[in-house]
């Protein structure tokens, strides 16, 4: 690319500023002696020279350059105060082919937007940032900036900036260059022609890094604001060179552009088969794999509550029941105890099975099946058992047989003991599941439905512990054991 300095308006600007309302279409809105015009020019020249205008978005901040999009002949996005880096992240992640340029002042970047900025830098977002540091707030009328110098009088530091009250001027280049991700960090000044040429080189380098997709590039530009610094334009350069550069030294702080490989981002996949494979559930036979149930039991809503100590597998027993219902084409809901109750060490969940639409998923009355694995749950939930409800309890923890109302059934299974004997106390819930199966078989299921119980349970266990083959096999075994033990106890 050409490095020859050209005269006249760079092609990266519009010929006339039609986006600007009002009658002034030829001039920018900046004050005499302001650095924005010069920096705008360097950027406009670069995007035209590099032939990237079509795919470039320049992000206008809040500050004096809020209307930068009036001037640059490229895409423009005007963002909230300080949010440039976040918006840039969104743009470049969404469309890695685009070129994104952040343009921020010292308040926008180093005060209200510093977190967004430093996080984007730290992630190495593929875009470049031009940071205009003029040590003062311009747009709002001369208030203190995070980069105002010690002793500097502004409208909000009328006695001069004091390190004890306002802290020290923020050294952004020094901070950014300490991070791993940034590729290139330089501070330049828009003062002498020599310095402006250095700035030009830095601007072009930063944009090149974005074009090459090498990551985050940052150029801090010490720039003049004679109106708010109350200096004559002629004295502006002197202030920058004599006062600002003492605290904000010029130079390259980091440059690893040659070592960095281009950032590669994934290509979004929309292929129907690939999306289905990713989001649907692999299942031999697909949706038609499982027959519906015929037992009259399922002609009305079935309300199940399961309670016990946390860690007894209360929630997963509920999940397995819900998955079983799903496999038999029922609508199901599973609602875990949620919120403060969880903290007390007890857990419960409600499961509802219904051929039709499920109303309230909360089971706090008319419970058809109550399964309790500890005493507190029995005491708490037994009043919720419905007229002809079935209570199943773990008799290894609940020693005395609970009293139920006429019409209700109370059925004991020493699930804990059986599981321990089986070799894993954690399988008590699967033992209980098998026992539920035996009870259902005895009282409620048609022979055809009863014959499907173990198969359905195994499919549901496999779904709930997907990828954990050993646990699946163990629980399926424990379920079978629970079924047999209950069957024997019932006969």
């Amino acid at each position: 690319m050409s490095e020859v300095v050209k005269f006249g308006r760079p092609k990266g600007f519009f010929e006339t500023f039609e986006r600007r309302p009002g009658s002034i279409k030829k001039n920018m809105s900046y004050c005499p002696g302001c650095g924005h015009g010069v920096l705008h020019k360097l950027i406009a020249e670069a995007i035209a020279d590099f032939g990237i205008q079509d795919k470039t978005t320049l992000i206008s901040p809040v500050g004096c350059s809020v209307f930068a999009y009036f001037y640059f002949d490229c895409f423009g996005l005007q963002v909230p105060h300080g949010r440039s880096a976040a918006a840039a992240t969104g743009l470049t992640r969404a469309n890695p082919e685009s070129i994104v340029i952040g343009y921020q002042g010292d308040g926008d970047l180093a005060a209200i937007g510093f977190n967004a900025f430093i996080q984007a830098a730290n992630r190495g977002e593929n875009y470049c940032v031009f940071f205009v540091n003029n040590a003062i707030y311009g747009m709002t009328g001369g208030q203190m900036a995070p980069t105002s110098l010690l002793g500097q009088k502004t409208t909000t530091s009328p006695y001069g900036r004091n390190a004890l009250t306002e802290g020290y001027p923020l050294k952004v280049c020094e901070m950014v260059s300490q991070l791993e991700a940034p590729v290139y960090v330089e501070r330049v000044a828009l003062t002498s022609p020599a310095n402006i040429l250095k700035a030009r080189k830095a601007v072009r380098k930063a944009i090149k890094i974005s074009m090459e997709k090498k990551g985050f590039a940052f150029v801090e530009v010490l720039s003049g604001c004679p109106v708010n610094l109350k200096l004559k334009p002629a004295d502006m350069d002197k202030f920058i060179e004599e006062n600002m550069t003492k605290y904000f030294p010029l130079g390259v702080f980091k440059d690893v552009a040659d070592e960095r490989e281009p950032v590669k981002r994934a290509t979004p996949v929309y292929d129907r088969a690939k999306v289905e494979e990713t989001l649907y559930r692999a299942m031999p036979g697909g949706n038609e794999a499982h027959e519906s149930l015929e037992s009259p039991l399922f002609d009305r809503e079935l309300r199940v509550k399961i309670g016990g100590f946390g860690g007894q597998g209360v929630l997963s027993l509920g999940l397995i029941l819900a998955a079983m219902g799903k496999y038999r084409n029922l609508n199901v809901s599973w609602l875990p105890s949620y919120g403060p109750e969880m903290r007390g060490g007890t857990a419960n969940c409600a499961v509802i099975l219904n051929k039709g639409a499920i109303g309230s998923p909360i089971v706090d009355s008319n419970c058809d099946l109550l399964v309790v694995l500890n005493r507190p749950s029995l005491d708490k939930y037994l009043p919720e058992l419905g007229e002809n409800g079935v209570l199943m309890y773990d008799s290894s923890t609940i020693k005395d047989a609970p009293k139920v109302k006429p019409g209700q059934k109370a059925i004991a299974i020493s699930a804990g003991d059986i599981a321990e004997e089986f070799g894993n106390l954690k399988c008590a819930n699967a033992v209980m599941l098998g026992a539920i199966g035996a009870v259902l078989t005895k009282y409620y299921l048609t022979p055809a439905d009863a014959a499907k119980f173990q198969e359905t349970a195994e499919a549901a266990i496999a779904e709930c512990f997907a990828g954990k083959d050993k646990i699946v096999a163990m629980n399926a075994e424990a379920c079978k054991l629970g079924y047999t033990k209950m069957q024997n106890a019932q006969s």
Partner: protein
Amino acid sequence: MEYSNKLLLKGNEAVVYGALLAGCDCFFGYPITPASEIAQTAAEKFPLLGRTFLQAECETASINMVMGASAAGRRVMTASSGLGISLKQEGVSYIATMELPCVIIDVMRGGPGLGNIAPEQSDYNQITKGGGHGGYKVIVLAPGSAQEMCDFAGLAFDLADQYRSPVYLLTDGVVGQMLESVTLPAPRPRRESPEWALDFKVNPRTNYLTSIYMEPADLEKVNIHLNEKYARIEENEQRCEEYLADDAEFIISGFGICGRVIRTAAERLREEGIRAGVIRPLTLFPFPKKAFRKHAEHAKSFVSVELNNGQMIDDIRLAIECSRPVSLVNRMGGNLVTVDDVVRHVRKLAKGGN
């Protein structure tokens, strides 16, 4: 291998599936209970399809990332809960003004302040009246099940595109945390970048997006344009589910988990011979005024069931122009309204009480 599109999913998971199937390209978010499963599921599933998931450093960053991705012409979504949504509101105001489509999920928890992580519905006013600064509105959908979390994600993206507006899915911790059977829809092809996007493949360099209009006349024009759009939305997009409502003397209304509780309550009341019916709003902005007005012709009384201090009740009163009494059944702080609470209340109304 054959595949089944019937899954057991939490509401918070289902919304991510629905979004991906609707062609969502990007997710930006920040973890918060009880919405975190949305970010977690997105973190797992988006990369599997080469789509963008990014955990932002804060809520303000995440909404501005949404702004950037939407400006780039992509389908984009974020999710949070109450206090996190409050932080996003600045960005939403800009997004609404620039007329950028996006989908925002609010899985409401207990408030105000840090509140707690139990379910509440107290962001109703915040979301349905706009939320951030300035006179903008957003479309608000109210899913009440895992299936609707999935389906409304797709609907939300379509409405967002159609009206160039942020669309909220406003639900509560119960719907987010509850697991239900969900039938997933078919995957949709990529939605091409709209003509206004900052996407060179559509429209090289000609577009710009802004929300600053220094001339009062210009800004008024923008506001008039936005409000004409909101009027169109109010006219065309009111949605609700009516249940047993046609001959109802008592119309019970609620959204999210309350929409489920009142369905069961209405069935119970009918068994007792009390003619109760349900209007469950599926859109909260626009509020389904037409349905409420229609049923005000025969209903004696309206009941609003809410997990907050009584917010939707005002919209019911406005919808029926206070022509019938409207009473409130509510709980706060993360407690749930039970079927019995509602049944008892309506029973009392039926006996002539208040």
